[in-house]
C-alpha cells in the first residue's frame, strides 16, 4: 500500500506492506539507522521515534499507522532549517554517551519530555526516561544532560559554541 506521512520535516510517500514494522521501514528502506532495535518487543526504548511529537516505539508500530502523521527520528531532530536541538551536545558534554546504542532513543524520549515539561526535576526526568534502558551509563549523566539541555532550552544556560 501507499503511505503518506511527513518524515523529518519532509512529506514522503512510500510504497510498502501495511504491516511492515516502522523500525524496519526506517532502517532498511529509508536508511535511518539511527533508529535502533534492541528487543523488538517494546521493552527497551532503543527504537523510540517521535510521532506528532510524542515518543513512540517503532518496533511496535506498523507502517499503516504512519498515514498522515508527522514522524521525527534522531536524524531529523536537528535537521537543517530547524533550530538546533540542545540535547545531543548536552549528552556529549555531560558524558552521557558511552556505547551510544540507547542514545538516539534516549534523546528522543528526552525531547518529548521537555516538550511536556520544560523545567523537569531530576525525578521527573527519571520518570520520563524510565522506558528507555541504558546498560552503560547508570543514567546519572543522562539525567545531567537532560537537565542541562532543559536549561539551555529555556535560555537559562549558555549554549555550547
Amino acid at each position, binding site marked *: 500500500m501507499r503511505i503518506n506521512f511527513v518524515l523529518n520535516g519532509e512529506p514522503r510517500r512510500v510504497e510498502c506492506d501495511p504491516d511492515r514494522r516502522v523500525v524496519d521501514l526506517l532502517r532498511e528502506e529509508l536508511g535511518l539507522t539511527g533508529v535502533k532495535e*534492541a*528487543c523488538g518487543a517494546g521493552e527497551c526504548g532503543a527504537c523510540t521515534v517521535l510521532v506528532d511529537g510524542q515518543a513512540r516505539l517503532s518496533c511496535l508500530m506498523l507502517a499503516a499507522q504512519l498515514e498522515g502523521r508527522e514522524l521525527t527520528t534522531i*536524524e531529523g531532530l536537528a535537521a537543517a532549517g530547524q533550530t538546533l536541538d540542545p540535547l545531543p551536545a548536552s549528552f556529549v558534554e555531560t*558524558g552521557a554517551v558511552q*556505547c551510544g*546504542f540507547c542514545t538516539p532513543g534516549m*534523546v528522543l524520549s528526552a525531547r518529548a519530555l521537555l516538550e511536556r515539561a520544560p523545567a523537569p526535576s531530576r525525578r521527573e526526568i527519571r520518570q520520563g526516561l524510565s522506558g528507555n*534502558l541504558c546498560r552503560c551509563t547508570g543514567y546519572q*549523566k543522562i539525567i545531567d544532560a537532560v537537565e542541562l539541555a532543559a536549561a539551555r532550552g529555556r535560555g537559562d544556560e549558555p549554549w555550547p559554541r
Partner: protein
Amino acid sequence: MNPRGFQDGRKTSRDGDLAKARGLEMFAADRYGAGMLWAGVRRAGVAHAAIEGVDTSRALAAPGVVAALTHADIKGSNRQGVIQRDQPVLADDRVRHRGDAVALVVAETRQALAAALELISLQLSELPAVFDPDQALAKGAPIIHPGHAGGNLLLGGRVETGRGEAVLAECAAMVEAEYRLPWQEHAYLETEAGWAIQEDDGRLIIVSSTQTPFRDRQEVAEALGLDPARLRMIAPPTGGAFGGKDGVSVQSLLALAALACPGRPIKMWWSREESFLASPKRHRARLRYRLGADSQGRFQALAAEIVYDTGPYDHLGGAVLTLGLEHAGGPYRIPNALIEARAVYTNNPVSGAFRGFGVPQVAAAMEMTVDLLAAKLGRDPLDLRRLNAVRRGDIIAPGVTLTGSTEIGQCLDRLEAHDLWRGRRAWKEAAGPFQRRGVGVAAVMHAVGYGPMVPDVGNAKIELGADGVFSLFCGVVEMGQGNSATYGLLAERVLGQEPGSVRLIQPDTDRCLPSGSASASRTTFTFGNAVLGAATLLRERLLARAADALLGVAPAEMALLPGRVRHLPTGKELPLDLLARLMTPEQRVAVHRHRAPASTQRPSADPVLQMHGLPHEVFSFGAVLAAVEIDELTGRLRVERLITAVDCGGLIDPLLAERQVEGAVVQGLGYGLYEEFLAREGRVLSPDLATYIIPTALDAPEMETVFVPGHEESGPLGLKGVGEVGIDGPLPALANALRDAVGDCPRRFPLTPERVLEALAGAGERGGRP
C-alpha cells in the same frame, strides 16, 4: 569492495559521542544494502543429546534460501574458544546445551530465513543431562566432554598459604557462611551482530561487534581451516559488550556463510531471546567462607570454597575462576588461607567473561563475611576493614605480595570522613513509620591486565599523513569506555597537538596491529603505554627530520607545535604537511610495542593456575558506601545514596573514569537487587528484557564517585584500569546495608522483596528459600 558500514577518521571521542547522539554512528548491525543476504542458525533446543543427523534438504528447497550448512561443511577443527577450544561452530557429534547452533541457513530475506530455519530437521537422541555443579562432579554423572581429562571439572585450583585453615581453630572469633550468586546476563543493548563478504580475490571481510578482532581472526581461521591472512576482521565501536563479546559469536558463522556465498554481503543479527540463550553469562556461584580473627580483630585465617557453574564450554571460565581465586580474600592482609576453587561443566547456558571476571562473586562472599565477623567482634565494620586493609608490600590471602600502588586505605578514609557515614545514626533514626534504614560498606580490589603467562601486549601505530594530520591506529576496541579518546589525548600530548586533532582509526586487522582484547581493565593501561611509546618515537623522528631541513640546527632546538615544527632560537617554522612531504611513507609511521609488567611471583606452583592468570602485578582498589531504606510491609529496598571511592592511580580524563565507575556501579546494583537470570533444566526462564529486569532510570540512585590520588609507576601517566573495579562492591555494600537495617541478610541474590521480607522475619540466617 571497500568495507563501509563503520566510520573512522573521526577526530575526537567527543565527535564520536556526538555522532552517536545524532544517530550517525554505524554499528555492526547498521549495514543494509542491495543484495544483502541474511544468515541465522537453528539452535538445538535440548540440553544434552547425541546428534544422529541433521537434514537440511527441506530448508534448502524453500524459496529464497541460498545455503543451508552443517558441521559437515566445515573444513577446519570446528572448535573455538580462547583457552580450551571446546565449543563447536556448528554442533557435530553432540549437543551440550539448548543454545548450541546446529545448522546455518543463508537466505534472501529475514522472512525466508525464519521460515527455512523451521524446516531443518534434527535427529537427536537425548542424553542424561546435568544442571548442578555438585551433581556434575558426583560419581556417575553424565560426562559433557568425554575427551576432557578432568571429567566435568573444567578447572580446579587450590592455594594454601601459611598454616592454612588449621589456624581457624585458634582464632578468637570465627564466622562462616555459604552464599549463592545467580547468573548475570550482560544485556548489552546491541545484541550480537555483524556482516561479512567474500571478495573476488577470496578474502573474507568480517565486520562484527567484538572485543577481540585479532584473536577472532585466529580462532575463526582454525575453526574453519583457513589461512588467517585470508581474513580481515573489522571492529566498529560496540553497542555494549562488558565481556560478553570477548569471544566469538557471529564471526565464524558469518565466515562460513561467506565461504558458501561468494560476492554477496551477508548479515547476522541475533534476536534478544537468542542473545540471552546463547551468549555467555556471569558464572552462577556457590561459595562457602570461613574467616577468623584474633581478639583485636586482625584477620588470621580464611578458608574459601568456590564453585562456578561454567556451562558446557570453557569460554574463559577457567580464567574467570582463577581471578576469583586470586581475589577471594579481598584487599586484606590474611596470613593463613586455604582457597579451593572449581569451575564445573554443566548443560546450563554458557558462562564466561563479564565485567568483574569472577571477582564480584568472591567480593560478595568476602565482604558479607567481614560484616559477620565485625558483628561477632562487636566492631564497627568500616573500622575493621581499615585495620586489615592492605598497604603496598602486604600479602593478600592467596599469597600475592602487592608491589604496585595500593590506596585502599585512602578509599576507606574518604568513606569514613563522608557525611553519610558520620551522620548515619541520625539518618537511620529519622526513618518513617514502617521504614528501616541501613548503611553498608564494602572494600574491593581488582587486577589490571592479564596474568603472568599470556603476554599483555599493545602495539600502537601512529602515522603523520601526507596531509600533515596524524592518525592513530587503535589495536583495541572501543566499547563505549572512551578509550580511543584517551589514546588520542595521550598521542596529542606527546606530539604537542591540539586536543581532538589526531584521527582515530578503529581496529581493523589489515590496518592496525594486534593488541589483545578490550577487557581485563587493561585497554588504557597497556595500549596507552604503547601509544606513548609510538608518539615519542615519531616526535623524535619528526624533529630530527625538520632540523635537517632547516640546515645546521640541532633537533634539541626544535619543538613540535600544533600543525608545525618550530626552530625555537630563530622562530622559523615548518608546517607538518610540508615536513610530511620531505619524508617517505615508512618514515612517517612509528610503531611501538609495550608489554605490561608481568608478575614474577609464584603463589602457586600449579602451571595451570599460572596459565589462567595467577597472579597479577597491578591492582585497582575501591570502597563503596550504600544507604538503603527498607519498607517493612512490602520488602521494597530503595537505594538512597551510593558513594564509591576509587583508587585507579592517576587520572587522564576524570569524566571518562567517572562514567566507567557509574556504569559499573549500576550493573553491580542490578546484580544485587534485580537481575535474576533463571534457567531450569537448561531452559531459560527469563528470556527477554520483560522478565530479566535490569535497572531503569528510576532504579538507579544518585551516585557520588570519589577518586583518591594515586600513581602507578607502570601505568601511562600513572594510571591503572578503572573499567571493572566499580562492579565488585555494590552488591555486598547493599547486602551489608540491609543487614544494618534489619539485622539480617539473605545469602541468595538478587535481594528481591520476598528475600528482604524473609530477612525481616529472620529466615535469612538459614540461607533463604531454595
